């Protein structure tokens, strides 16, 4: 009987990860029991999604305005300090001093928002590695992400004025199977002995294995994960960890590019609005006894 919660927990985890492998979106949709594409008969205006549309338009406007302000040089709020990102410079510097490589992986998922964030940070890491003349090893699990990662690193070396230092063989596709990839990275850690290990993406059951194997090499470890069922393994084994949404602010924070910074500021405005809406909805539910009337209004 004592094993029942363990078994349940394992299968919940397993199911969650299988879903994540198929599609991060479907996982979220299943979790929230939200309408899925097959639930709808295609219509130009989908009933029940008016407020969804309004929120998306408001988000576009907020981001658009902030990007324009940033491009025009008008003042916009600055992104606060993110400790994990400041450590990237330190980690690459340490690798340079030790004459050892930097390892970077954009995570286990295919093309999702998380992977895009990982690739944006990869670009900055590659630029710094090229400037410091430090070898950068990138490993990929997704065949589709591999050519994009190669392009990103190549472009970063070009922008750093070191196109000759780019070695396509250092951006490696290892295996698309979860634990094959994991075991290959473990072996790579031991053979290449990276002085900095940056795992930046969506990680599942391999999170602890990779972080622990990285710690064995004595590398400075920086992790970022959006998987709430695995991020704690990074927190206990890595030196710096970016939690969930922090990943998305990272690229803007590192690059200081107006478009990215404006996007983060616009999203923050929206988040503040959502926070206020939650407070309002909770007060409504407490005073009126139920939030159903408000929810019905927002589901129009």
């Amino acid at each position, binding site marked *: 009987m004592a094993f029942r919660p363990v078994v349940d*927990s394992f299968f919940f985890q397993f199911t969650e990860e299988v879903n994540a492998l198929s599609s991060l979106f479907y996982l979220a949709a299943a979790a929230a029991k939200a309408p899925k594409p097959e639930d709808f008969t295609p219509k130009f205006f989908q009933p029940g999604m008016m407020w969804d549309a309004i929120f998306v338009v408001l988000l576009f406007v907020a981001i658009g305005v902030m990007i324009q302000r940033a491009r025009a040089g008008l003042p916009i709020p600055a992104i606060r300090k993110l400790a994990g990102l400041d450590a990237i410079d330190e980690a690459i510097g340490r690798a340079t001093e030790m004459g050892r490589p930097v390892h970077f992986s954009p995570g286990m998922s295919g093309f999702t928002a998380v992977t895009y964030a990982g690739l944006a940070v990869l670009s900055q890491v590659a630029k710094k590695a090229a400037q410091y003349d430090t070898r950068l090893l990138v490993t990929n699990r997704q065949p589709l992400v591999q050519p994009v990662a190669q392009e990103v690193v190549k472009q970063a070396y070009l922008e750093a004025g070191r196109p000759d230092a780019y070695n396509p063989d250092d951006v490696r596709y290892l295996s698309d*199977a979860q634990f094959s990839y994991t075991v290959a990275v473990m072996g790579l850690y031991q053979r290449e002995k990276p002085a900095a290990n940056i795992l930046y993406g969506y990680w599942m059951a391999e999170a602890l294995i990779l972080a622990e194997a990285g710690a064995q090499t004595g590398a400075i470890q920086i992790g970022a994960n959006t998987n709430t069922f695995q991020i704690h393994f990074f*927190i206990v084994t890595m030196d710096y960890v970016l939690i969930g*949404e922090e990943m998305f602010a990272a690229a803007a924070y590192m690059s200081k590019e107006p478009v990215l910074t404006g996007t983060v500021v616009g999203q923050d405005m929206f988040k*503040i609005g959502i926070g206020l809406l939650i407070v309002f909805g909770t007060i409504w539910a407490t005073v009126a006894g139920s*939030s159903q009337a408000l929810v019905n209004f927002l589901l129009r």
Partner: protein
Amino acid sequence: MSAQTGLYIGALLTIMAWSFLYKENPFFRFTEHLYIGLVTAYGVGYTYHNNLVPIVTKDIVQKGGYSLIIPAVVGLLIYARYVRGWVWLSRIPMAFWIGYGAGYSLAFTPAVFMKQIFDSFIRLNTINNIIYFLVVVTAVMFFIFTVKKESGPMKWGHYAGRYGLMIAFGSAFGSITMAYLSLIIGRLGYILRDALHLIK
């Protein structure tokens, strides 16, 4: 090969993989390369027999679904990256895939998002609901990056959000570590009971 021989091989490979816990060694390296090779070979075989052959023989040839040739050709363009001068063609399937992902997310992610917001509208009539409300709001505050957190409500919201998240991660850590222990117990059972018959 008998079933028992398969069990011996499985047990031996498990121990060779675990030898990494001591340090990297030739046995681990052999297991690593064998595992990657097997998975790759299995993946190629599986894809060929379960995707490629049925699609070509049934969906395209038998059912006349010739429109499927178009995405197949677009997909094959990804190999153009190996042909000097034609590399640009390999970006077409990438662009298609990324555009599809972005459009799909924009159309359907808000519904998921809205459902989560609506589920947060709860009555503050129990201690559980009050804790839930406080953690939700302060966690949102933790993830606001452009408002200074050095003073005022943001400072306390940020701290409270961080502690709320850490408590949540701690509970998940305990739960999943227990699950991993059950996996180790299962594997030990495989070696000691199924393969070596040392325990019943």
